[in-house]
């Protein structure tokens, strides 16, 4: 095999480096940045193509090249030729160690641009990984094997790229060397792809016939083998495709506030990365969601104040007026602010082994805002291979669906197709803190500013005053058989004797009526608690002291109810009994049935109980009688 030599493409650059390093470096500082993703299966030659790009742009040192030569002979799949795939794929060792490679980022540069390539190898978890890699990409290279044409995978990759909002698509018809550089073959594939692309709303794409292995149309075009091809080479296209800075900058200003910079009493700056638009001192701005307006006084940086800052820059702004503005707010053009809403339709990509639980609270992070959110039962799931809509109750790992999302307070947003920054969000599990999903907002279902609560003439304070008491919700939680109902009843009796207006909501009773449509799955249990929470809240509004006795095993739902009520009105009472003791008592004979497998989803047996971390009151039933427990609770509430 011939010794590898520096690729011709970079020869001029090397000459300049050798002759005039200062001129070269000056040019380095004025490069643009393009992020792209390559989509294809292992067989499509994706690794070979990336390896080829690294090689052609000379990101490969001689020691690596020597190792590559040796590896190519030893384990390569290209006979005596260099197997470029080994450059990026050299992950065999890692695979053997059982290490998953999900998304890897590679870097190369040409004279004009620096490139960051998101590479998502393997078939496993493909949707999750590709969506992750694509989320920061400006362009996607969809690889097709010229011998096979447009396949199911091609459609899937294209759908995902389109879903995530990538505007520039390249259809790279690879392995042209294996079909004798046949123009007809290329044209047929392009024709097939165009029909499919239009059907899912992709209006434009750039088809390029290439051979990653032989190098055709990678750096220059047309190659000697494809005289019929009139378009650009792949690198030329990557270097010249419109990046969209200008389009970003002419939009109205949007800067999500990350951090308030307050080193002393004289300075109060708002730090953030400008998502869209341009800002100058003197510009009128509006802080959303509050709607307060002011003007920009300075754009502060370490290198001195700026006259102007544009989308893509991280800056610190000071405002002329002392108005409320903190992390999560968005500083926007005063005359064109974004909306705020608390209910949306969104596309959701599920990324966790644990499926979506409709109705459960998740943390939702969008730009710099973090709120509690629930996802409703999906409207449908999309089969990413056929684009069919499927009726589903939940979303599992790698599923993509459309669902309504409700947040616990209005958030500032824009439709994802307008703004990735203000339209894309992640969902985080409240217990494990894992990122479980990515979402893209389609539109708001109702604008929060248009939904008004009917103002009631008699306020909750007036209700409470008449009863001469402070309303509260005593929320009992604990295992089945822990003594919740017994103690709750005692507490109510004692309060009643003290002329308090009370009401006891008991788990079993509620399930006979209000919630008789619900079972014991995780989702149903969450809905059970949500409804009870709402009822308890209405009763507290009416001035009552509400006592609830539900197992309520999940921390997230108890926290949800806590948030519905004014500060201090939710009193979590943990009736703490060891499982062994509760099971030994087994008043209703339920543990026995659960152990026998006759009862499914029984808390403590095959469904978890999440203990309160900081309950207002903890009752250790091994240390006191129900009477003593009730006295203690009454003291805390009334005393």
């Amino acid at each position, binding site marked *: 095999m011939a010794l590898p030599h520096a690729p011709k493409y970079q020869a001029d650059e090397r000459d300049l480096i050798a002759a005039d390093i200062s001129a070269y470096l000056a040019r380095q500082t004025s490069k643009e940045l393009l992020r792209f993703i390559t989509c294809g299966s292992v067989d499509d030659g994706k690794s070979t193509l990336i390896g080829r790009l690294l090689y052609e742009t000379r990101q490969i040192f001689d020691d690596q090249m020597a190792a590559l030569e040796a590896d190519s002979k030893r384990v390569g799949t290209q006979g005596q030729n260099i197997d470029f795939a080994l450059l990026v794929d050299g992950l065999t060792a890692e695979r053997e160690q059982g290490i998953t*490679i*999900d998304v890897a980022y590679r870097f190369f540069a040409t004279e004009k641009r620096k490139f960051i390539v998101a590479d998502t190898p393997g078939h496993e978890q493909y949707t999750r990984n590709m969506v992750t890699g694509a*989320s920061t990409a400006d362009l996607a290279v969809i690889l097709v094997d010229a011998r096979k044409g447009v396949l199911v995978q091609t459609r899937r990759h294209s759908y995902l790229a389109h879903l995530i909002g990538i505007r520039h698509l390249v259809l790279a018809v690879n392995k042209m060397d294996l079909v004798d550089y046949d123009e007809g073959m290329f044209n047929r594939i392009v024709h097939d792809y165009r029909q499919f692309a239009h059907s899912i709303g992709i209006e434009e794409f750039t088809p390029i016939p290439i051979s990653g292995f032989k190098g055709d149309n990678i750096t220059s075009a047309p190659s000697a083998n494809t005289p019929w091809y009139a378009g650009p080479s792949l690198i030329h296209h990557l270097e010249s495709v419109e990046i969209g800075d200008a389009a970003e900058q002419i939009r109205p200003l949007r800067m999500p506030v990350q951090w308030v910079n307050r*080193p002393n009493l004289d300075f109060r700056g708002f730090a953030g990365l400008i998502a869209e638009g341009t800002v100058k001192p003197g510009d009128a701005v509006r802080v959303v969601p509050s709607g307060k307006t002011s003007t920009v006084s300075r754009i502060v940086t370490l290198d001195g104040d700026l006259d102007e800052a544009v989308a893509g820059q*991280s800056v610190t702004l000071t405002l002329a007026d002392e108005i409320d503005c903190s992390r999560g707010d968005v500083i926007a053009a005063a005359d064109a602010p974004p909306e705020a809403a608390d209910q949306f339709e969104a596309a959701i990509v599920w*990324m966790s082994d644990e499926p979506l639980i409709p109705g459960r609270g998740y943390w939702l992070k969008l730009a710099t805002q973090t709120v509690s959110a629930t996802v409703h039962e999906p409207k449908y799931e999309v089969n990413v291979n056929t684009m069919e809509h499927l009726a589903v109750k939940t979303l599992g790992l790698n599923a993509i669906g459309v669902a309504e999302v409700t947040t616990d307070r209005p958030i500032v947003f824009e439709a994802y197709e307008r703004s990735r920054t203000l339209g894309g969000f992640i969902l985080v599990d409240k217990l494990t803190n894992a990122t479980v999903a990515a979402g893209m907002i389609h539109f708001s279902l109702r604008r929060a500013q248009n939904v008004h609560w009917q103002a009631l003439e008699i306020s909750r304070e007036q209700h409470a005053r008449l009863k001469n008491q402070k309303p509260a919700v005593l929320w009992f939680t604990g295992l089945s058989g822990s003594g919740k109902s017994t103690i709750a009843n005692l507490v109510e009796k004692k309060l009643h004797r003290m002329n308090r207006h009370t009401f006891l909501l008991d788990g079993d009773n509620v399930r006979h009526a209000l919630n008789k449509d619900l079972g014991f799955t995780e989702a149903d249990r969450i809905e059970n608690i949500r409804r009870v929470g709402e009822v308890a809240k209405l009763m507290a509004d009416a001035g009552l002291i509400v006592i609830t006795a539900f197992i309520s095993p999940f921390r997230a739902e108890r926290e949800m109810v806590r948030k519905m009520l004014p500060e201090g009105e939710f009193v979590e009472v943990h009736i703490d009994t060891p499982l062994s003791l509760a099971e030994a008592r087994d008043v209703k004979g339920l543990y026995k049935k659960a152990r026998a497998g006759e009862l499914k989803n029984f808390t403590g047996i095959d469904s978890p109980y999440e203990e309160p971390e900081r309950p207002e009151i903890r009752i250790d039933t091994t240390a006191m009688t129900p009477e003593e427990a009730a006295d203690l609770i009454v003291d805390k509430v009334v005393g």
Partner: protein
Amino acid sequence: MSGLTHLDRLEAESIHIMRETVAEAARPVMLYSIGKDSAVMLHLARKAFYPAPLPFPLLHVDTTWKFQDMYALRDKVGAEAGIELLVYKNPEAEAKGINPFDHGPLHTDLWKTEGLRQALDKYGFDAAFGGARRDEEKSRAKERIFSFRTASHRWDPKRQRPELWSLYNVRKNPGESMRVFPLSNWTELDIWTYILRERIEIVPLYLAAPRSVVERDGLLIMVDDDRFQLKDGEQVQTRSVRFRTLGCYPLSGAIESDADTIEQVVQEMLLATTSERQGRIIDRDAGEGSMEKKKQEGYF
């Protein structure tokens, strides 16, 4: 209308990452290793929080075997207004006199890996900035910008959180922590061109000068102080050398060079024929995948 260059974009991204961390973490810290990447990271942090002082301390996990020039720059940085510099030395390694001459890989394990864990635990830091870049090494290419660690500081590459857009999930349970890599998307060339553009001060060892070295196992090792243990037949010679990466001086290989300006260093680097980490003994310890293994154990 102005177009941003790739350095502008990288700078803005790094600043955004640092601000997200400071806004959401309880007790952040910046790992300061005194090298060129640390210098760039520190410069970006100043930009991110100006005019406020850095809202976190710098932490140097010392091995007592760094180059004299490195200690000089570290102490200069530490003396600046608005900078809190913490230096941590693993007391066990200190008591046992662990050194790279007598103890081989144990030196790195105890001083660096173990020292870092001890320091993070001692101060209760829950987010630590590191200057690692994805272009350095294969196992780095797939690491997240916010890399989650268990309470025992282990990295589990199978349980990495997906990282979408510029939305970073900084939530964690008590005891767990994050490593944050604001320079993830920078390449070595980006670092150098940025150092030039911003006139960032770096340790002079990156530039060529006549220095005392010995040749050992095919590497040029600098004799930086009188603790150096000469082997039979080894001779100290003066040669014009510079370093591509800096660590403990007995573990850092120099390269012969006359490049005494940053421009010339970059010129040599671009025309060079070997990849960056060649001069580092540490990565060779356990052959293929050794960095991966170190990271799982808690090495940065």
